[in-house]
């Protein structure tokens, strides 16, 4: 029974991780940029949801899309103001000043954490729940209405994202840019717009994750650090740039941490993912779903 409890809890946590990690892996897979401010997109979503609900009295179900909007906004602004100058005029990623992206996004992360700390304050703020059911039995499991809703929304979003990339016109643009930016531009695809779309989608996913978790993990200026660190681990385990790989790795990590905390030691909970990461790097360096590439 305990094992089943742990498995379900691990899957739910894994879904939260997946929402975060997928956005990060998309940005890397398509733009070849590691976004160190990804955790702060999560934080922006958590605060937007919490503040809009608590301070303006707007119902949580309305605050949720507003948080997504805030995530899209910060994603768009980041790409437009900070990322685009890095690759403007370059047709090939090989020539792009991508090392600058690391510095720029790291700086953005520090800026956002300190900005929210000074403007809103350092106190943790608990977001309102989307459900008034604080705990309920689902078969043999106990969970809050918020966790169930969060898990359902996470599944819907991940499926919607997969369909968007696979079926929509914009999604096909994104796929084309991911395969060959220069080739895509020759084929008439607006690569700059595709980059914007991907940053916005990444911001939306992170912000929704932040909003959904705000009633569980209270919003605070540094709240994004924890999911961001997990996301980096997940993205490497899943294969950099692979969306299915990230989802699988996120679920795997959630379950692994859940079991490890009980059957091994809670103290080393955060190290289980790192051990898995090292094993993956040793035996399958491209990650679970990554492709082995060689540049000449």
């Amino acid at each position, binding site marked *: *029974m*305990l094992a089943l*409890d*742990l498995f379900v*809890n691990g899957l739910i*946590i894994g879904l939260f991780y997946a929402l975060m990690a997928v956005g990060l892996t998309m940005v890397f897979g398509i733009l070849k940029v590691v976004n160190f401010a990804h955790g702060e997109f999560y934080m922006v979503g958590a605060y937007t949801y919490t503040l809009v609900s608590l301070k303006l009295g707007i119902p949580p179900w309305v605050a949720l899309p507003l948080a997504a909007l805030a995530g899209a906004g910060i994603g768009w602004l980041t790409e437009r103001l900070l990322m685009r100058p890095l690759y403007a005029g370059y047709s090939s990623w090989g020539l792009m000043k991508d090392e600058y992206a690391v510095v720029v996004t790291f700086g953005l992360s520090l800026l956002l954490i300190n900005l929210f*700390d000074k403007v809103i304050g*350092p*106190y*943790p*703020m*608990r977001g309102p729940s989307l459900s008034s059911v*604080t*705990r309920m039995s689902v078969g043999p499991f*106990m*969970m*809050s209405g918020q*966790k169930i809703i969060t898990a359902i929304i996470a599944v819907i979003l991940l499926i919607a994202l997969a369909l968007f990339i696979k079926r929509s016109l914009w999604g096909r643009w994104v796929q084309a840019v991911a395969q060959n930016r220069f080739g895509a531009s020759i084929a008439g695809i607006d690569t700059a717009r595709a980059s914007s779309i991907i940053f916005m989608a990444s911001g939306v996913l992170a912000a929704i994750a932040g909003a959904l978790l705000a009633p*569980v*993990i*209270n919003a*605070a*200026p*540094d709240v994004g650090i*924890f999911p961001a660190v997990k996301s980096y681990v997940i993205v490497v385990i899943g294969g950099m740039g692979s969306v299915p790989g990230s989802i699988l790795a996120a679920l795997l990590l959630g379950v692994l*941490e*859940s*079991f490890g*905390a*009980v059957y091994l030691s*809670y*103290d080393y*909970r*955060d190290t289980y993912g790192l051990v898995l990461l090292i094993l993956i790097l040793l035996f399958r360096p491209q990650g679970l779903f990554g492709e082995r590439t060689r540049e000449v």
Partner: protein
Amino acid sequence: MSLQRFAMLASAAIMSAAFGTASAADGPIRIGVSIAQSPPGSVVQGTQVKQGAEIMMNLINDAGGVMGRKIELIYEDDQGIPEKGRAAAEKLITRDDVVAVTGGHQSSVCLAAIEVAHAYKMPYVNTNCWSDDIREKGYNEIFNPGNYNTRVSSAMAETIAALGVKSVVAFAENTDYGIGQAKVLGKFLKEMAPDTSYKYEALDRAGKDFTPAVLPLRGNPPEMVVNVMLPPAAYILMNQLYEQGVAPSAKTWFYDGAGIADYPDFWDNVKEAGQYMLAFGLYHPAMPMPDSGRQVGQIYQDKYGNEPNRLIFQAADSILLIAKAIEAAGGTDPAALIKAMDDMTFESIRGTFKFSQEPGYTFKQWVDIPFATYQMTEVNQPLSKTLLIQATGQELQTDKLLRPAN
């Protein structure tokens, strides 16, 4: 050098020295306050320490200051990180010329900062670091007018024994304070309730999900879960204990030993998970308290709109202690201040006491610091409405405690 030139230089040196002395003597007396003003430290605690210290500084300054000089508080943000606390103490002592350092509210930070105070032989007034280790170091410069782990754990063990609880699980944060208190609680339970089984689990204070630590309790819940964690981790733990139906429940008490019940953001963060919580506290409006304490509490309430809590009083007392020591010593010489604190009977705003000189956890400690045990019986309940079941000098009344229906 001509005689005239020598005379000019000598006069200038004498005048400069004279003005310098006059300026230092007439200027404000600087007291260093090292607190967490940004994460990962407890900013909630840091803010309250700051508010309490400022109330006392204003009271002293409005009354004419100390020996005719105003008090000035110099703040340093230690972020709740030991190495930053050490650097903060070093800066306050060597660069800001403070006469004493105070404000410490997280044990790991205090343990680092007191090494600096000890090395420079500067008075250090520990506002709210509970770890017994701080006292057991036996440093002559460190004074403890606040609470300590042994006090909390012995009071909690007494309550647990009175309740007849047979199994206790404590969740302690992985810090000097958390682990220290959890261990001392185990020691006292062995003495006071030898039939009670006890174990504690250390959790990461920066953790965000404690469900895997909570789930194993669902199948076979203990009769009591004890919290030895500070917010925000404590809030997350409480919500997850409640969500899983572990505690508080009809079968399992939830007992807070970290003094979080009177935090201003407590109810915003825990809601139903806080109802029926049993709490160890160092202040309750129904506790006996000197008029000076009531005055400070009223000033706080008028200014900030919240009921005061222990940190407000403890911080105010830390500043008052230093001010009184300066008056008693007739100056700010560190050795004289330390001797004054050793010798004085301190009329604090929470009661009158003399620092113990007994080695061990009682060294330079207010040993009989007043405490209270109470229960939150309603969601969003203000401290003044909570159910007081014990205050210093009063009988423990566990029969008044309420339990949830399920």
